[in-house]
């Protein structure tokens, strides 16, 4: 089932949570609403669910206007960050409850409910915990039960509010993979909120990046990561190095570093900021022309397969973060306080004035 969000705005007293949001979510898609705290992602999710009302705009489910409908009439499944399992009910009762409280005409028989609950318990791999209470479960188990409860009522849309936010890193990673696999098997239109870039890039079919109540960019994980449309998106999606400089007739000068930028061939002596990802920094022990810039190695963290380096440019004093493989690190035999030469393999240039608010 598709969701069409048109011109949605929401204000809390003087705080503008959402302003003129337009978004279409296709049937069977798994979409991540990604953004920092206060960006409006949870508000948007709650408006889709009907738990919050928008000041203006409309929400359409498969072309049918749902803007004025109550939560119970929207047939959505909602998974809360802190699970919101019914504490006074067992796992089985929690999942079955949505079916048991249906009007008598729509209520399945006891046998059908039991069969459905058992199917869901096996889907979330929790068959043996049916008689336990939520307080007797771990965080990851509670989250899976919350998901099973949401799926029990056969929702048209599944909404998840920071579903893994309250869990530790290892459990998060496992549940992330599990959710992706579950969605592939059970392709219900799903929207989840997260502030974890890695989570969004890992799980979603499409990512919607929000900031201060506005959509900054939307696209597939590859699109938003490889082609960020503005500095905010670039900054938000992973670590980044900022090189300040100028551009003139397609030549970028970043201190002593000179690079070609054909897309800025019209620019006449304008200030720029070059955005470079840590893994896009090439390191050499020798200097070649104006392509490389001298830097001093300040700190080395050689844990795992990736080595993180912190360096300081000798010409401008700007700090540079780089990520290199262990093999390259060993080959270069890098040490702290050593002078090396760095070059961006890939970069994105933004002219600050173009992105002023």
């Amino acid at each position, binding site marked *: 089932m598709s969701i069409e969000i048109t011109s949605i705005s929401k204000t809390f007293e003087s705080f503008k949570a959402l302003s003129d949001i337009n978004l279409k979510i296709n049937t069977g898609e798994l979409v991540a609403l990604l953004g920092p705290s206060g960006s409006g992602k949870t508000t948007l999710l709650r408006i889709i669910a009907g738990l919050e009302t928008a000041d203006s705009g409309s929400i359409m489910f498969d072309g049918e206007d749902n803007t004025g409908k109550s939560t119970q009439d929207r047939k959505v499944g909602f998974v809360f960050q802190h699970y*919101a399992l019914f504490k006074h009910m067992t796992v089985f009762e929690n999942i079955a409850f949505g079916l048991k409280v249906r009007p008598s005409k729509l209520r399945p028989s006891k046998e059908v409910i039991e069969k459905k609950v058992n199917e869901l318990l096996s889907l979330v791999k929790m068959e043996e915990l049916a008689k336990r209470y939520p307080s007797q479960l771990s965080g990851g188990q509670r989250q899976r039960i919350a998901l099973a409860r949401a799926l029990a009522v056969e929702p048209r849309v599944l909404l998840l509010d920071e579903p893994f936010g309250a869990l530790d890193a290892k459990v998060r990673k496992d549940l992330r993979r599990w959710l992706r696999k579950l969605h592939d098997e059970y392709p219900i239109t799903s929207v989840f909120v997260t502030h974890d870039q890695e989570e969004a890039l890992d799980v979603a079919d499409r990512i919607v990046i929000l900031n201060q109540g506005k959509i900054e960019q939307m696209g597939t994980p590859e699109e938003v990561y490889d082609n960020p449309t503005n500095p905010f998106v670039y900054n938000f999606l992973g670590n980044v190095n900022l090189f300040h400089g100028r551009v003139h007739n397609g030549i970028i000068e970043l201190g002593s570093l000179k690079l070609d930028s054909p897309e800025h061939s019209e620019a006449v002596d304008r200030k720029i900021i070059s955005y470079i990802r840590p893994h896009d920094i090439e390191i050499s022990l020798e200097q070649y022309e104006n392509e490389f810039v001298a830097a001093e190695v300040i700190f080395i963290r050689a844990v795992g397969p990736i080595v993180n380096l912190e360096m300081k440019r000798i010409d401008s004093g700007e700090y540079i973060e780089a990520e290199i493989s262990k093999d390259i690190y060993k080959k270069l035999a890098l040490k702290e306080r050593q002078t090396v030469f760095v070059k961006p393999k890939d970069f994105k240039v933004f002219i600050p004035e173009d992105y002023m608010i």
Partner: protein
Amino acid sequence: MKYDWSILIEKFPIFLPAAFETLKITAAAIIVGLVIGLLTSMCRISKIKLIYYPATFYVNLVRGTPILLQLFIVYYGLTDIVNLSAYPSAIIAFGLHNGAYISEIFRGAIKSIDRGQFEAARSIGMSKFRAMYRIILPQALKRAVPPLGNQFIIATKDSSLASAVTVKELLLKSQQMGSSTFRFMEYFLIAGIYYFIMTSILGFFVHKLEKRLAVSDR
């Protein structure tokens, strides 16, 4: 004057009927209080001003005036309008008094339930009313057990004030026995022992209930 401790054993059984009267008044006042309390707590969490303000006024009025005064107003005031004996007057007064305190216990318990519980109930297709009585209230009642138990114990002891309007309960019995023998201390002690036994038994059962309800929280 020396105390005659043999009276404690000798006259203890004589107080049983009065103890039953005390229990009857307490039980009736608690039942009335629970009904009023539950309804008032619902009114107190309502967004409808026409419901909210009268309920709030009632709670503040009862909590802001002494229970003995309330008993006298009901007994002497209502008997001008309807023919009420001391016994129903005491039940009405104590019921109204307990209702106000119980309503605040329920209101606090309802408010303490995480809003997510209500939203989760709504998201699986429940109406507001249904979510309240199937999800919120069962959890709130569980949380209300310790303060309710406390209120029931207070109600048991407050029932002694019914003696002021001639209800033949424990305190009046001990006053009457004391007056006829001038052995006030001994008879008040007997009454005290009865109150202590009743409140201890009540406390024991409340504690048992608390532990039983805590299964889902372990």
